[in-house]
């Protein structure tokens, strides 16, 4: 199969997966909202109107106003930026580290493998969110620090996945042949091994974005996410939770936004996994 047909096959399979299509549509909307937030939002997300705080949905404020009278819809749209930035940023950073470490461990095996994998084991012994809380508590709340905190453990999964793939692929005949004709190790890894190891990583990364968005919401809920007044969905839930009984929309709206986004990424991930499944392709 040429590369072109592989991509086409995957695209065709994803298109048949209803959940994946719906997920993909939501992800596109989310990306659009994040990129075009200043154009889409009806109000400045930081503009306060203290006296109309906690107002419910109205003609001018479709989703109502928070305690400080800020427009909830505008904050929701701008909040998508943080979610997207954290989701993509964390996964990119984790993937970069995971790719390096996993490739080195899988390709060189032996002591290098042993060293990296024991390091991974040690890191896996930490409860993820607790480590993230500890890191953001020390570094202070900001977008950059959230990325650092979530990637500090995020890379381990990718590293293990890639290592496993490489260990399997490096023993395959086409790799052995390439090695036999004297292909240098770097080229062997880049051209022959990695492209064949990447499918499960892409699937994992899609789920990883969803996990990062939930983790960011959790950190923001605890006041350890991005610094105010930047709107973040987790922080919006946290700000609204004191008014659950008088203004439930303050928590349910950002809560639904997180749920739908995470579901979308998970559906897309499911679709990709089914589409890229090597075993299925072998039939």
């Amino acid at each position, binding site marked *: 199969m040429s590369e072109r047909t592989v991509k086409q096959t995957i695209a065709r399979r994803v298109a048949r997966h209803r959940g994946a299509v719906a997920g993909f549509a939501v992800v596109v909307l989310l990306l659009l909202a994040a990129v075009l937030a200043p154009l889409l939002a009806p109000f400045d997300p930081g503009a*306060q109107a*203290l006296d109309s*705080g906690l107002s419910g949905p109205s003609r001018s404020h479709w989703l109502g106003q928070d*305690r400080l009278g800020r427009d909830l819809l505008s904050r929701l749209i701008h909040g998508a930026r943080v979610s997207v930035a954290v989701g993509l940023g964390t996964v990119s950073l984790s993937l970069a580290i995971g790719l390096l470490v996993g490739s080195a461990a899988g390709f060189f095996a032996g002591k290098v493998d042993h060293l990296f994998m024991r390091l991974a084991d040690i890191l896996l012994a930490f409860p993820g969110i607790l480590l993230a809380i500890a890191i953001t508590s020390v570094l*202070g*709340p900001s977008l950059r620090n959230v990325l650092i905190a979530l990637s500090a453990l995020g890379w381990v999964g990718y590293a293990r996945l890639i290592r496993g793939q490489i260990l399997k692929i490096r023993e395959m005949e086409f790799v052995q042949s390439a090695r036999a004709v004297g292909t240098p190790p770097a080229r062997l890894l880049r051209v022959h091994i990695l492209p064949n190891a990447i499918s499960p990583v892409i699937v994992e990364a899609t789920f990883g974005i969803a996990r990062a968005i939930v983790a960011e919401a959790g950190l923001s809920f605890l006041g350890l996410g991005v610094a105010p*007044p930047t709107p973040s969905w987790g922080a919006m839930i946290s700000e609204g939770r004191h008014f659950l*009984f008088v203004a439930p929309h303050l928590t349910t709206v950002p809560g639904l936004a997180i749920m739908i986004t995470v579901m979308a990424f998970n559906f897309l991930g499911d679709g990709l996994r089914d589409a890229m499944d090597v075993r299925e392709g072998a039939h």
Partner: protein
Amino acid sequence: MADVKDRLASALLLAAIAAASPTGCSQRMPADSGELVIAFPGAPVSIDPRLSTDAYGTQILQMTHASLIRMDAAGNPLPDLAEGFEARSPTEVVFRLRDGVRFHDGRELTSADVRDTFAWILNPRNRSPHRSTYETIREIETPDSRTVVFRLSEPFAPFLAGMVRGIVPAGTRAAGYSPPIGAGPYRVDDYEQDTAIRLSRFEGYHGGAARIEQVVVKFLPDSNVRFLELKKGSVNLVLNGVEPDLIPAVLENGNLVMEEAPGSNVSYLGFNLRDPFLSDARVRRAIALAIDREAIARTLWKGHADLADSLLAPGFWAHDDKIPPLRYDPAAARRLLEAAGYRDPDGDGPKPRFRLTYKTSQNELRRRIAAVIQEELRQAGIAVEIQSLEWGTFFSDIRKGNFQLYSLTWVGIADPDIYHYAFHSGQTPPEGANRGGYRNPEVDRLVTEGRRETSREKRKKIYGKVQQILSRDLPVFPLWINRNILVRDRRLTGFVITPDEDYASVKEMTFRKGKEAGK
């Protein structure tokens, strides 16, 4: 000489008032068998009177421990264990204990217990955070079982305020978190750390047994849980634990009523005077003028807050009533900043005159207030970055002077000597609380004079001057004083809301029998 006589006379007068006060001979009323459930918005750190510094611990101790004297709302002493006291000289005070006062285990409370309580605090090995309060005590003498004589190394006016300290039996060790025995109206039956404390009436209480038999204090940090428990009826008294926005919703339960009274805890905005921007008094004044405190009090506090003009509440005896008010005036704020040389580079555009960092705790309401102040200062051309930090980190940063702007609340000011602790140039951290590094020789002189002076009238004049100077220099900007809001079961009577959130009146409470009682 006249001075000494004046001081002595006023001290004797106080003692006489104290002795004449009716609490000493309270009549026994028919006892109530009900159970009172109180909710606190947090859990105490310690409930040992010799160690406790937190508000929740202090409030439990007001129900379980008795002290030599108590203070009324205006800061006047009332008798408790002592039936009276006498200042024989500015450095010698004699307390006379009531006859037949007993601890919860039946032991008699004697002068030796009083001496031992203070000696324990003064022993550096015990590391009591209250030690500095009593450092002027040179000697404690107990000529007989009912007389305690305190001799001071120098005249120290705040001495009496320090006598509001629960007395524990001699020889009591600090036993971790378990509360020591006291002589207050309630004894501790069960203490589950961070969850609840269960108290029962002490029949032998010297002021007459309390009327409600059982008191349970639940520690409920979540405002939604407090709200639900109140509505459900499983909590029947909450003082300052219902979000101002939720009060109307909580009162939908017809069994609940709300009472409101002035408070004394002053929230303020702290400035770091070592900072190049904030060292300029014009910049500090501009910041003060740019903050619309009235709007915050009206909306975020729903009107349950009064604007502050000093660290002392208006009802407190040393408060100066002639401090010029500082009203919201954003135009004046901008003019002051211009005059100070901080031009706005692009008018209403996004570029600020300069940037500041504002530190606050993670309390949601505090963060909300921070967001409002951030927005108001942005309009004046000052960019503010909010750092909302975990309490331990936040408070340690503030105590070290590591901040530009911060906001905190002074709790439990019992004596104007707080001005020495917070503004004397020698009281910079770590020893003192002059966290912003304020220096003014005139204030140094006045606050030193104020703690040596024992005539209340003269002290009032001294601290009046201090408050005037501080309102001009603005080393801190007093924001507001929250009103105390009590939500209670309508059958409950007898709780007296004091400015400092005292729970001593729980012993006077009762469930009123009536038609509501059957609900």
